[in-house]
């Protein structure tokens, strides 16, 4: 099946978890897995990419890739795709991945398939599964072009090491004529505590049913007792109760904890996309017809402002402070 190319992302000196998921899965799709890594810290992440199955790496370490959105990377990745003609190009379904895939698609007139949750080979083509309408419908699309571009949602695949050596590296220079475009002037990080939302084994999420921002304190308390993280629906993020970093769903994070506890969340399809992969779902909602109950393992019809504090007490009685 030829060469599978992955647009790798670097986060805090390591390949992003989603990048490793893509590299791992690509081993099942092609004869050879290559990564393109455009980041000032690219060389630091090559061993990990090799250890997950990438045997070739195309690398650029210019600062422009951090300072400018999309355009310089699209210039270089498009030229690379045009030259090496991969059978398939996988992009992380992140903000950066989308901007990049969209631009490569426009530059090379190649189709882009978005929101993929699975990719398999089918002769010379690929079958791409995506879930739509809030993950109520699964669509399978057959690619029918050279080098189709696929944006994959986080946690669709499991990252598994292959124990491979560091990849053979080729440096891609950033041509002087490449447009730079929009410039990042500053990055503001909102403070957070406890385990990251995407890694947490327990997520305690709140929605508009929590009534007001101050009531998120009880959710934080419960999350602390359970060693988990707090999440939120978009309604409360848009209302400014909690930062966007906590948003779960189609336009927020995808989480797959052991237990997801939804408090005062209706279960809009755009929210469900981000959490329906949780192993177990507990929902507290005062409306017995709330859609969230359709997929909860344990549903409680009741007032979250009473049930959550009572649960905190109950857990305290069982020795969790």
């Amino acid at each position, binding site marked *: 099946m030829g060469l599978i190319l992955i647009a790798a992302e670097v986060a805090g000196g390591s390949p992003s978890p989603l990048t490793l998921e893509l590299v791992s899965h690509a081993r099942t799709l092609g004869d050879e897995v290559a990564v393109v890594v455009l980041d000032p810290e690219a060389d630091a992440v090559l061993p990990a990419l090799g250890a997950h199955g990438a045997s070739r790496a195309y690398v650029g370490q210019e600062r422009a890739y951090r300072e400018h959105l999309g355009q310089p990377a699209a210039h270089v990745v498009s030229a690379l795709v045009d030259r090496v003609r991969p059978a398939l190009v996988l992009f992380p379904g992140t903000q950066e991945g989308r901007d990049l895939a969209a631009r490569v*698609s426009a530059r090379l007139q190649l189709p882009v398939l978005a929101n993929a949750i699975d990719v398999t080979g089918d002769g010379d083509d690929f079958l791409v599964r995506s879930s739509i309408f809030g993950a109520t419908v699964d669509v399978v699309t057959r690619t029918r072009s050279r080098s189709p571009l696929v944006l994959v949602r986080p946690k669709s695949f499991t990252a598994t090491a292959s124990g491979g050596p560091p990849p053979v590296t080729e440096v891609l220079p950033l041509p002087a004529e490449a447009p730079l*475009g929009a410039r990042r002037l500053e990055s503001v990080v909102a403070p957070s505590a406890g385990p990251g939302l995407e890694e947490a084994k327990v997520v305690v999420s709140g929605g508009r049913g929590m009534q007001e921002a101050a009531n998120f304190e009880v959710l934080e308390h419960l999350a602390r007792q*359970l060693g988990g993280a707090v999440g939120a629906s978009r309604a409360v993020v848009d209302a400014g109760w909690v930062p966007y970093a906590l948003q779960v769903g189609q336009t927020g994070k995808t989480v797959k904890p052991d237990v997801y506890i939804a408090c005062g969340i209706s279960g809009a399809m755009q929210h469900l996309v981000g959490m329906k992969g949780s192993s177990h779902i507990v929902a507290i909602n005062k409306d017995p017809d709330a859609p969230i109950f359709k997929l*909860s393992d344990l549903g409680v019809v009741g007032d979250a402002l009473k049930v959550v504090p009572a649960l905190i007490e109950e857990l305290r009685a069982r020795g969790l402070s």
Partner: protein
Amino acid sequence: MKVAVFVKQIPDPTGVGRLDPATHLLVRDGAELVLDPGDANGVEAALRVVEANGGEVVAITMGGERAAEVLRKAMAMGAGSAIHVADDRLRGSDALATARVLAAAVARSGCELVVAGTESTDGYTGTVPAAVAELLGWPALTFAKALEVDSGTVRIQRQTPAGHDVVEASLPAVVTVTGAINEPRYPSLRGIMAAKSKPLELLSLDDLGVPPDEVGLAGAGQEVISAAPAPERAAGELIEDDGSAARRIADYLAELKVI
């Protein structure tokens, strides 16, 4: 300055989406069609830019006959004119084809700023605006939760997983906005009346010079081969809180060995 705003008509997102079993295209007949809620934020953002800088908002859509409704809505909110690209040969267009058509419409309109949603609520590839930017050779400032335009410079707060980035570019540029950027205004009665007489230009592929074989089903680089209900998570136990629910949840967490 002239500011283009992209508006997409979609089936009411509070309803249940359906695909045609034979063509696998989104069923629009019978469904209530509305302005994509994300694009209402776009219209609001575009209006605020011209309110601060002077100029006019041009609403642009690609879609069937009824898509004119979302243009009227944008004009009722305050857009000054509208462009409707409608052509039977566009049916089944993918995101790239949509971008080609919209980019051609922007070029023709003479706008120097495009405001769009970060992603539509139905197709949600989130790739159309950045593809339009690439086709025009413009920068794209995506995921804006705040937008400011001042003497030829666009500056946004770009929502990030950890907080936000401040991003800047010179015009011309494409900006995509998130739901957090503003609270869209409701059209006033006067606005609705005024919208009826605002100019709405109807364009075909030929008007835009976009080759028909590169758009629509013919130009799509992919083919949907099946659409089936996703495996449902079965609903489990449902209890009414009579004061004992907290204990039941704690027991359940203990069963799962979470505590």
